[in-house]
């Protein structure tokens, strides 16, 4: 991930940004999409990036900052190469997600709200992912990993360690 000494959108993101602006009658409404673009380019949102976004959208920097802090998915700190978001809500807990949290800690040294020393994994315990029918569930970066068991979790982690992101299973009928 590039470091944001003086951040600016790359060519592709600049085009996306211009396309995004056309969708809304007011610039302010493009804030969330623009933050997504910025985070996609830099991996996380620094204060400089927030000021850059504010400038591009004619917003006050503190507005952009407050919004970035409001939404859970915007990272203000770097995350691991594989950012794990494990659901801790009701159905997943009923189906044993807490065992998985313990397993990640004991076997891999991956703890909630921490990034491993080698920068490979970070873990966040999140709220309902909309995957209750396939609980316990987890996101690995953008990918939904569902029907988790300890074994499946092991396979996912090993896969990540070999540089292979897990694949999302096709959605079932029910």
């Amino acid at each position, binding site marked *: 991930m590039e470091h944001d000494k003086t951040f600016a959108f790359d060519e592709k993101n600049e085009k996306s940004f211009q396309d995004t602006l056309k969708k809304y009658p007011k610039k*302010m*409404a493009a804030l969330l999409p623009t933050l997504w673009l910025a985070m996609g380019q830099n991996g996380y949102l620094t204060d400089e990036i927030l000021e850059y976004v504010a400038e591009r959208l004619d917003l006050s920097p503190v507005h952009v900052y407050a919004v970035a802090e409001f939404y859970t998915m915007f990272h203000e700190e770097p995350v691991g190469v594989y950012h794990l978001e494990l659901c801790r*809500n009701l159905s997943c807990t009923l189906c044993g997600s807490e065992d998985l949290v313990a397993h990640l800690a004991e076997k891999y040294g991956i703890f909630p709200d921490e990034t491993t020393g080698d920068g490979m994994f970070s873990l966040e315990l999140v709220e309902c992912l909309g995957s*209750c029918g396939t609980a316990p569930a987890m996101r690995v970066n953008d990918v939904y990993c569902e029907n988790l068991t300890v074994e499946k979790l092991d396979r996912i982690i090993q896969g990540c360690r070999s540089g292979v992101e897990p694949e999302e299973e096709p959605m079932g*009928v029910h």
Partner: protein
Amino acid sequence: MSKKIISVNFDKPNAHRLSVYEELGGYRSLTKLFAMNPADVIEEVKKSGLRGRGGAGFSAGMKWSFVPKDIGKPKYLCVNADEGEPGTFKDRKILVLDPHALIEGIVICSFAVGIHTAYVYVRGEYDTPIKKLQAAIDEAYAKGYLGSNIRGSGFDLDVYVHRGAGAYICGEETGLIESLEGKKGQPRPKPPYPAVIGLFGCPTVVNNVETLSALPFILNNGWEAYAALGTERSKGTMLFSISGMVERPGVYEEAFGVNLWEFIERSTGGVKGRRGLKAVIPGGSSSPILTAEEARSVSLDYESIAAAGSMIGSGAIIVLSEDNCVVKALQVISRFYAHESCGQCPPCREGTYWLTRLAERMEKGEGHPGDLDLILDICPNMMGTTVCVLSDAMALPARSYVQKFRDEFERHIKEKRCPFSRARNNVAVG
């Protein structure tokens, strides 16, 4: 036995592709639609009895009719695909397996109300649904089902996907609007209602994904066909997301009026491992809990569930077995509401935090004897006193857990541990 309206294409391979969708009869309703008077479309939907499937259950047609006719301002449709209510995962199915059904519904609603710009607000975590939906939208534009002069009708409509970023409160209609406008998703005091002053200060309809996806059926088959299903005041079908301790969790569509537990058993195979049933949460974590007896005797429709002291909500059914702990459930959901509270009003932001702390120590076996009455005293202070109902969504269930399963709570206090913890230890992980 179960009538499929929304999920009819779920098991059809590649129904998300426009060519397949058209073969299955997709977009057929538009021919009829554009020949109708928009006001008649609203009437049709009103008479069908279609109610909002996002959680509020308000008559869709009536909501549309609140939009002022000639106001000189553009009108907007916000499709609520934020699906954050714990236990709910049915809109995700529609977005991935049958996105064109949603698009068709969007066209129908927009034509009826006079809307030319629609935003689909999809929760940030739903990467695959967003991709699928956007691909379907692109296909629809290419084939002339969206854009200007749709299929020669003279009607223009643009549909944009707007990605959320992880906030349950953006599922609240004014929270969604605030978020779309580029602010924190903090709900607005009502009145004014979005139908009059909504997105960018303009009249706005906010509808759930499932609600809109029911519209093609109503247009194609007439309001009578839809109203023929269900009960007197709960017409049609709903996608029920069933999860928790059942054999085959999943989304199951059913017409209103069946027995709740019979429906659950029939669809999912009943309690996992044939364990005993303890409780059923009928409408997402925001709904008061039902005991096993109540679940076995109540009919699955808006009025009956309300009469039983709970609500249909988003149709998210969570089943607890005899091995599960209600106190644990309270700890988990209170933590959820505290995390998701937008923080505007004191009863919610402080109340959810307080209840979470109380539930946590209760679950760990460190509860004080006065905690239960304290919880029961805090809850009414959080009900009907806030900007939006997230506060009620915490307090109503919390009160029901303590009232209906008081013995479990008292055991935690007396035994100083969770009697249901499998590991028989007191560490609450995560």
